[in-house]
């Protein structure tokens, strides 16, 4: 195992053993076979150390800053590790020192100097209503800012469900006409990292992959990296055996809830949610939503906000059935009407009855 990166790491006090361990763990997290850890270690070690840290530009649109907050919770690599050692975070409104036009200038400088090479990270959706006036930065609509920044980007990371799929602003009735990045940008590679917010290690892992290999990881049909979004929460959930045994929590504080039984009945969307929470967990492996007792909201899936209610089991109706009662009335009415028609017909036949005589037997 040799190469500039490993040498750089060695200088920073990272031993080869540490690095191998890191790769093994990363491979495990990315659901790759154990042998891939070693392969990855060798590939990463052999990758030429960049002369410059690659430029990353992060633009916030219709967002809540949860995605930024989430990435600051990243344990390995840590946010400071990324900023100091791996990337040059040239624009990030929540973290950057400069403001106003200084910030704008930093943005334009980075875009100019790294044209064609920078990684563009977007969080938040883009409103198309009112010519974009629903969300403006420096008097400029998000749409305009996105198009401008996308031009020189090597690839775009749509960070969080809003950027990836439209997220909460797009929830019914979508008052601002919010759309996702991929609804607008068609000519650049886009990698979606959905989640509300995404798991920090997924964000940093994907960034690390892009920086190490210079390419996007394998994506699924929704533009998500397969390594993290390849399986459903339900598949990897530690409570899955209880589902299989038919043991369910019926409320948030019954025997089942305390025993950690399956939360399907309480509306868990784990079965239809592709994400890595169950394996990677949150906040340094402390816990994750299902482990703490609340069902999965399904936050890494498109339009999960309109998925029929967070406490409705997947096998339950998404909306209360509105027409059932009316249908019953109509059905009963139709049935009664038909009954009368039929009985009428029958009694008509009866009253028209002509006694059969012997002669009638012969046609």
């Amino acid at each position, binding site marked *: 195992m040799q190469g500039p990166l490993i040498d750089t790491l060695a200088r920073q006090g990272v031993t080869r053993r540490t690095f191998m361990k890191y790769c093994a763990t990363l491979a495990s997290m990315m659901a790759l076979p154990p042998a891939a850890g070693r392969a990855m270690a060798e590939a990463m070690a052999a990758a030429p150390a960049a002369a410059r840290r690659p430029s990353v530009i992060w633009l916030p649109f219709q967002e809540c800053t949860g995605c930024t907050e989430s990435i600051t919770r990243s344990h390995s690599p840590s946010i400071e590790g990324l900023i100091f050692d791996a990337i040059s975070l040239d624009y990030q409104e929540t973290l950057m020192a400069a403001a106003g036009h200084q910030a704008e200038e930093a943005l334009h400088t980075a875009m100019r100097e790294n044209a064609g090479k920078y990684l563009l990270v977007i969080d938040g959706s883009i409103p198309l209503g009112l010519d974009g006036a629903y969300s403006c930065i420096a008097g400029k609509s998000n749409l305009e800012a996105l198009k401008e920044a996308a031009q020189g980007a090597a690839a775009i990371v749509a960070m969080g469900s809003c950027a990836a799929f439209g997220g909460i602003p797009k929830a019914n009735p979508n008052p601002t006409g919010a759309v996702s990045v991929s609804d607008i940008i068609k000519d650049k590679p886009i990698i979606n990292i959905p989640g509300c917010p995404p798991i920090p290690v997924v964000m940093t892992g994907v960034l690390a992959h892009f920086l190490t290999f210079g390419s996007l990881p394998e994506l699924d049909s929704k533009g998500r990296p397969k390594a993290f979004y390849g399986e459903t929460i339900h598949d990897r959930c530690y409570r899955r055996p209880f589902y299989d045994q*038919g043991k369910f929590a019926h409320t948030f504080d019954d025997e089942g809830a305390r025993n950690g039984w399956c939360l399907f009945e309480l509306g868990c969307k784990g079965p239809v949610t592709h994400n890595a929470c169950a394996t990677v967990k949150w906040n340094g492996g402390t816990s994750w939503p299902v482990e703490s007792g609340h069902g999965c909201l399904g936050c890494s899936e498109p339009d999960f906000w309109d998925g029929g209610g967070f406490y409705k089991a997947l096998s339950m109706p998404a909306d209360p059935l509105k027409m059932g009662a009316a249908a019953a009335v109509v059905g009963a009415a139709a049935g009664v009407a038909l009954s009368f028609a039929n009985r009428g017909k029958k009694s008509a036949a009866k009253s028209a009855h002509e006694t059969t005589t012997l002669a009638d037997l012969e046609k």
Partner: protein
Amino acid sequence: MNDMQFLTWVRGTGLDIAVSIFVLGVLWRLFEIYSLGRKADLAAPRDTPGASGWHTIFRRSIPPQGMVKKSPVSYIGGYTFHIGLAIVVFLFAPHILLIKNLTGLSWPALPSQFIDLVTVVTMAAMVVVLADRINKPVKRYLSTFGDWFTWTLTFLPLLTGWLAVQHLLLPYTVMLALHILSVELLLIFLPFTKLFHAFTVFGSRWYLGKINGHKGVAV
């Protein structure tokens, strides 16, 4: 429409439409059928214990002597798939939850591995029954489009449900949506095809039992 929207649609509007048509159809058809009425039987009854409509509803669930040997596939296949269907439909936890939501009634579920096994057995039984329908002259002779159609309507929910649980062929979300959709198709067509026997079978047996019970024959 993406897969989540598809799923939400089938769980929402789609289900609403299907259940409505089902309820409407069932009520309409039940009225249509049973309002035709029956004349009172004026013959003096012969009272024999055990000869009544109610008894027949249950008694007809047991094959008459010698018949299993005559048509083993119809009986074993038919019973397996009906019992299997009942187990899968009524004892799988997510289904119970749906029933609870719609009716407020619930009961304990069976482990899903068991349900899984039952599903496979049920599907196998259905395939056997289908093969029997194709091979047996009488069944082939009697079969109409409706028979092939209703077989498909019944088989699809099992197949899609099983595929969804096993994560085969399509992503779970899509498969689950297809599963629910197939159930909705089943619900929609049930009142208007021979699947309606699910309701009339009780009436038919009751009448048989009642009419024959009047004669003192326990059928």
